[in-house]
């Protein structure tokens, strides 16, 4: 038999394959580094020095605590904007997902329209959304809210649509067989089935949006991002470091809470 391999042959061939793949990866790295004039050795020696400088300057000191009230006020606002934009976008996404998901779409072409729309919204990165919206809505919290809203809308519509499409369509047939209307099928069948998965997505997006809100804030000049940018540019690195630290604490707290909520509702 020509395709019969002995175990020894098989493992030797497997080793050769892995070696070739590894060599190709190293080759690609070396080529790209050469093209951008990046010197691996110099970088390696400079990274520790850079990190030490970072730690020296960005570690919050006693002096930075005087900024605490201003920082926590902006952090609170940013958190609220992240939550508000996620929940708002979540509601719209649910509506679009029901119209767009194959088992619940009122007509087949809705599926295509919604999917295309969600993709269009999603391919514009949140940074671009912020810049575009800045022209129309000026430097305000609302601009940040909208930027996060559109990004979340595109993302969640896609996620919700796929969640609904994972549902066994026969479950809906059972409700139709009972004589339920379309709306009853959606509310009594689809929503109870997908509720926990949808909640998980919402919680995940809130975490995600809090991080993104910082970046959006830098661009739109609002919230914690603005404050970070402001301290940073006025050389108050310790205060900027305090902001990073507080954001990290908030994100971790948020993650722990949402893990707990997810376990409770599963």
């Amino acid at each position, binding site marked *: 038999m020509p395709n019969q391999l002995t175990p020894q042959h098989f493992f030797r061939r497997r080793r050769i394959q892995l070696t070739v793949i590894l060599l190709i990866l190293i080759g690609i790295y070396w080529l790209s580094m050469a093209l951008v004039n990046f010197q691996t050795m110099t970088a390696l020696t400079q990274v520790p020095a850079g990190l030490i400088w970072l730690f020296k300057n960005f570690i919050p000191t006693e002096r930075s605590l005087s900024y605490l009230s201003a920082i926590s006020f902006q952090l609170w606002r940013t958190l609220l904007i992240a939550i508000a934009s996620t929940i708002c976008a979540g509601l719209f996404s649910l509506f679009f997902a029901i119209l767009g998901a194959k088992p619940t779409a009122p007509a087949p072409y809705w599926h295509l329209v919604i999917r295309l729309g969600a993709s269009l919204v999603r391919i514009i990165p949140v940074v671009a959304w912020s810049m575009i919206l800045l022209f129309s809505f000026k430097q305000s919290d609302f601009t940040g809210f909208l930027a996060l809203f559109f990004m979340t809308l595109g993302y969640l519509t896609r996620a919700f649509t796929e969640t609904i499409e994972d549902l*066994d369509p026969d*479950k809906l047939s*059972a409700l*139709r*067989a*009972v*004589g*339920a*209307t379309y709306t*009853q099928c959606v509310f009594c069948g689809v929503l109870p089935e997908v509720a926990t998965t949808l909640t998980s997505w919402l919680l995940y997006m809130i975490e995600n949006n809090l991080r993104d809100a910082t970046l959006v804030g830098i661009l739109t000049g609002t919230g914690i991002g603005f404050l970070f940018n402001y301290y940073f540019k006025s050389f108050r690195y310790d205060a900027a470091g305090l902001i990073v630290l507080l954001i990290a604490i908030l994100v971790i707290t948020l993650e722990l809470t949402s893990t707990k909520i997810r376990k409770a509702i599963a």
Partner: protein
Amino acid sequence: MLKVIGLDKSYNRQKQSLKSVSFTAKPGEVTAIIGPSGAGKTTILRSVNQLIRDDAGQILLDDTDIRQAKPAELRQIRHHIGMIFQNYNLIGPLTALENVLHGRLGAKSTLAGILGLYSTAEKNEALELLKAVGLGDFALQRCDQLSGGQQQRVGIARALMQHPKMILCDEPIASLDPKSTKLVMDILRELAQSKQLIILINLHQLEIAQTYADHIVGINQGTIVYEGPQRALTPEKLQAIYRQAPTKEVSAHA
């Protein structure tokens, strides 16, 4: 009385799934549709309540043609036809009681249905039905935590909540163990007799059909090859029902 006359259905141009299918099913009897897989059993059953739209024919339930019904009328007709499935098709995260109450959706306004506004009488009836199928203690359990046999009995209770004239059963025992199979089939036979229901049931287990059915409809490749009482089912007729297509044709389709 359910009368199906000359039902045709094809899913694509090459192959006709149902060829002029006619049979009757009487109240108080268990009517079993038997035949090899792919013969068209599920297509027939799902045409009866128009979950599948067929191409031609008549489906008369007490002399009303279901095929001619307008959407609102169809909803009312469906309300009085219960249906149970191989995969139970309950809403898993909801309780058994809520799933049984879904049997009332066809009689409710859209708004009352989506808000879950059920009367005390309806809730009591649902609980009684769960007790009748032996699940009184499980009324407030999530359905996805129940065993297959228990879920199928919740499915039967949901069908009964519709005050049905007829219950359609699409391979109701295909996923069940022998003990649950007996329990479910006993309930269905008892219902046919005590409530004078039409029980129309798809089965691929011949022994079960022979034990429980009063009336047998045998189908092979979309054509009815036998219809008559269970007693009159001879080995020759069984052979005609389960006759395999010639090998040549199978390989041509594969």
